[in-house]
């Protein structure tokens, strides 16, 4: 069975950057699977998810393959691309207030991609819009309202409904809760999970929030400076991180179930796009870094005894106990 999303060796260059913004991403989302993509801002996680819809910044050049339902997105013609964006994959954006044209009615927003691609009659599109609004818990009258008349949480529900309009196989959620207040966040995440179940879509959930990633996802990718640092099943990865960066991220995230300790910020800044990188991108901030880390790029290696985990760290095996311990108790 083909995966819903398959990214192989995706590299992305931007004009003016000294190194690729994405340096060889491998990522898969299976059918009906929820996958979290975690990283700091600037790590390239948004760019990765946007490249699935080929929403690339001007001047960007790509290598590799991004396949949705087996079809390579990066080589599609305009018509296929519209078809993909309308019916196969849909994205939910961070700030619904900015993502929906304030001058058009919600009904227009929901139905326009179906109507304007001339494959769905207006009435049919309207009917689907009502059903999708119902699925996200909003009434029909929202159709005639303007975005300015709805709250942020309601707007994000509209956004989710719009993502479901074309009956997609894959939903990309780019920090869908960051712009919302805390109580709405939980609602939106819960709703997203329900709907994924109900409509049978795959979900790629992009977030900087490890807690959220752990709560919603089957598998997790941790990204750093345009590369995947570590990947594996959510539970195993958070219990026994094998990459120093994952461990550091975990320590900087507040957790309810752990004894209270001090939250540790990660020292230093992610590497700038203006400088080239040799060796491990995290070396400069890593407390365990050695000479080898600065000189040689660590390859992705399977974790012994855990076949579905990969980690890109020279010292991962030696550090295993130390990292697991520090993540849990520091």
């Amino acid at each position, binding site marked *: 069975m083909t995966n819903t999303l398959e990214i192989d060796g995706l590299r992305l260059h931007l004009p003016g950057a000294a190194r690729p913004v994405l340096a060889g991403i491998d990522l898969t989302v299976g059918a009906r699977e929820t996958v979290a993509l975690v990283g700091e801002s600037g790590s390239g996680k948004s760019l990765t998810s*946007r490249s699935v*819809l080929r*929403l690339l910044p001007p001047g960007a050049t790509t290598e590799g393959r991004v396949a949705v339902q087996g079809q390579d997105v990066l080589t599609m013609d305009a018509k296929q*691309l*519209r*078809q*993909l*964006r*309308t*019916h196969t994959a*849909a*994205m939910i*954006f961070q*700030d619904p207030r*900015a*993502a*929906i*044209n*304030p*001058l*058009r009615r919600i009904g227009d927003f929901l139905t*326009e*991609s179906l109507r*304007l*691609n001339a494959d769905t009659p207006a009435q049919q599109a309207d009917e689907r819009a009502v059903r999708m609004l119902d699925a996200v818990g909003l009434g029909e009258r929202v159709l005639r309202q*303007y975005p*300015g008349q709805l709250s942020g949480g309601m707007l994000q529900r509209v956004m989710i409904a*719009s993502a479901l309009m*074309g009956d997609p196989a894959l939903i990309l959620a780019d920090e869908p809760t960051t712009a919302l207040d805390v109580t709405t966040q939980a609602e939106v995440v819960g709703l997203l999970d329900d709907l994924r179940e109900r409509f049978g879509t795959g979900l790629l959930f992009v977030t900087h929030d490890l807690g959220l990633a752990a709560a919603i996802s089957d598998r997790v990718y941790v990204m750093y400076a345009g590369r995947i640092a570590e990947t594996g099943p959510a539970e195993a990865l958070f219990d026994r991180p094998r990459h120093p960066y994952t461990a550091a991220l975990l320590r900087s995230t507040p957790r309810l179930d752990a004894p209270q300790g001090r939250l540790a910020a990660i020292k230093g800044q992610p590497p700038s796009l203006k400088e080239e990188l040799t060796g491990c991108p995290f070396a400069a901030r890593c407390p365990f870094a050695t000479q080898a880390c600065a000189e040689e790029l660590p390859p992705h290696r399977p974790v012994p005894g855990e076949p579905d985990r990969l980690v890109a760290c020279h010292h991962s095996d030696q550090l295993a106990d130390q990292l697991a311990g520090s993540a849990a108790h520091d």
Partner: protein
Amino acid sequence: MTFLRFTLRRLAEMAATLLAASFLIFGAMYLAPGNPASFLLSGRSASPEALKAINDQYHLNDPFWEQYLRWLGQVLHGDFGRSIEYRTPVNTLLAARLPSTLLLVAMALVLVVVLGLALGWIGAVRGGATDSTILVGTTFAVGTPSFVAAVLLQGLFSVKLGWFPSSGSGAGLGSMLWHLTLPALALALYLIGMLARVTRSAMLEVMGHEHVTVTRSRGVPERAVIRRHVFRNTLGTVLTMGGLIVSTLLICTVLVETAFSVNGIGQLLDLSTTTKDFPVVQAISLIIVGIFMLVNFVVDLLLPLVDPRVSLGTRGASA
């Protein structure tokens, strides 16, 4: 604010501003050097009887306030008094010259809206060399006064090439359209450039907004993205320029009608200024100011229809 209340408030404001403007326009004459009668005669010698007749006819011996209120009362009844130069009612003069000016301004307005929006749109969407060319072209358009455009167009298209008549306004609609093509172009040129630049930069700004990216991400065809989201969202900005565009067109008819000898209200304003025919100057000034305010009022009423975020009476926000 309800529609009715807003309309009433704005109408009251307009009336106040117009009243102040009328006071300025009328009062200015009073500040003129020399006594009003000799001013009205503007240097022509007159017998004592004639002087007395003028004093009586124009009530020049009455106090200022009485004169102003009498004039204002007349104006409110649609009567702008009598021309000194032509010795006929100002209304008759204006009515005779209205058709050519109205047609001229209407033609220019169509040119401004159609070409201004189209050039701005093309520049913003195409980018590259097309955009640079339009940018340079509009820079020169904005730097070209209407009378310069008039003289140059006249020299090229009527004298050199003989395609269009070089003066007059013609009789009958077809002939008038024919005669007024070059004047309308000269009148419109500056505003075409300005509107194109405003449209272009407003569209570029909207293109940077997240919702445009989102619309693309949903498979909406690019043309529809530009039309329904980018251009649509600049309409508010364009609409707020309505008052400025119309009043600039109106006042620049003075220059263009003079250059092309068009028998219109603008030419009348020039002639009346030279001959110090003050009632005519007053009337035309007041009409131009009034139309400017009227257009702005209409714009204020239309703005909430174009941009649901603008509630009545709060101008400004647009994206």
